[in-house]
């Protein structure tokens, strides 16, 4: 194990994870709204927001899929020390981390009709987050919201599965936005 993987956790886990959860809750409950969170640092290229999200939501009970450039020895070491989540293939994952290019190719669980909650939550790393681009409507949005989604079609197909489907977090640096399966995505 690399010594560096012992670094980067929360200094005050109960409080920092509570604050991070509130940002995550607000992002999921208000799709498109950009929240700020931090406190954790994971090996590159993982953003602060993604690292904080992993530390807040994942533990030994949540199989995790690492996409592409995120599946490194340093990242696996960091996860096994701080989180303990088993690293699995996409089909068994409850959480997934990667870029959209990595994750859009993977086949992740979308839940079953009796238990639609048994589906994966994706943490999609982005270069930037901005309230422009795709138009979002649905639960959590009063009129409409906008978010620079990496594409449109995949999210429309995801919505068509409702109440099954995947839930998304988009992260860039310390910023976070959410897109639950219930959101209706349209081109601007």
């Amino acid at each position: 194990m690399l010594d560096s993987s012992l670094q980067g956790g929360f200094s005050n886990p109960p409080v920092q994870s509570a604050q991070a959860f509130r940002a995550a809750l607000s992002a999921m409950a208000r799709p498109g709204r950009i929240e700020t969170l931090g406190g954790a640092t994971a090996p590159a290229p993982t953003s602060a927001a993604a690292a904080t999200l992993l530390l807040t939501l994942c533990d030994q009970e949540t199989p995790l899929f690492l996409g592409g450039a995120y599946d490194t020895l340093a990242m696996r070491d960091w996860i096994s020390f701080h989180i303990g989540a088993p690293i699995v293939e996409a089909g068994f994952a409850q959480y997934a981390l990667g870029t959209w290019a990595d994750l859009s190719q993977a086949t992740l669980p979308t839940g079953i009709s009796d238990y639609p909650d048994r589906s994966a939550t994706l943490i999609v790393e982005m270069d930037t987050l901005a309230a422009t681009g795709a138009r979002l409507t649905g639960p959590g949005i009063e009129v409409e919201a906008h978010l620079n989604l990496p594409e449109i079609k995949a999210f429309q197909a995801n919505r068509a599965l409702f109440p099954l489907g995947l839930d998304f977090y988009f992260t860039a640096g310390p910023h976070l936005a959410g897109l639950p399966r219930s959101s209706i995505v349209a081109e601007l």
Partner: protein
Amino acid sequence: MSDYNFAYLDEQTKRMIRRAILKGVAIPGYQVPFASREMPMPYGWGTGGVQVTAACLTPDDTLKVIDQGADDTTNAVSIRKFFENTAQVDVTECTQEASVIQTRHRIPEEPLTEDQILVYQVPIPEPLRFLEPRETETRKMHALEEYGLMHVKLYEDIARHGHIATSYAYPVKVEDRYVMDPSPIPKFDNPRLESAAIQLFGAGREQRIYAVPPYTKVVSLDFEDHPFEQMKAEQDCDLCGAGHTYLDEVIVNDQGGRMFVCSDTNYCATRCDAGHRGRLSPEEDAA
């Protein structure tokens, strides 16, 4: 009390509850199973709500707890003290000042804002439970969107009483998909389930968490010829004179005397302070 972890629960438990809350938010109205813990209070006293509140609280929060609208009843007072001791959060009785509100069976009269979270204590989360006792079956009914039985129940109300007699825990359909039990709030409160706040529901004994995100469509079930009707006592509040609030009937003596007062004590007190008077308000000092 510094020997407790922040907000009582251990971090592993809070992560598990938080994951369930987020899935609940993503699938409005769907009941997410979670591994409810034993809490230092009996089932039926709001263990589900307490666990959801514990998973949401941050040290910066201001907590309000109400029981049937009242801030000063046993259940509300003890839960408020519990979090004062274990999370050191500020507490308030004022609806506008609170960032997290835990409630038993009422929605505050004051409209909630985007910065607030409303946590409901839920006894029986499954709206179909008294119609179909088997969990395997009700789960299938939700999966297949098979809600005919619920309409039959409402129809039988009409056949027997001439109107829909269900007056609390009135079933709603969330975002045109899941039929949901809004917890035993009076149906007077149903229209306010469409809110700017995040609404989270926790059922401790039944081990379910569900949610209604802000601005989510929540429709009370009804029929074209028997539309949903809000219901309240016809009187005005005897303390603050409000005619638009949900009222409690209070027996005041053994000669059949009774009075009607706002069930939301904070709302009533605020109105009284603002000079509103009701039938039984004390006389103003002549001085």
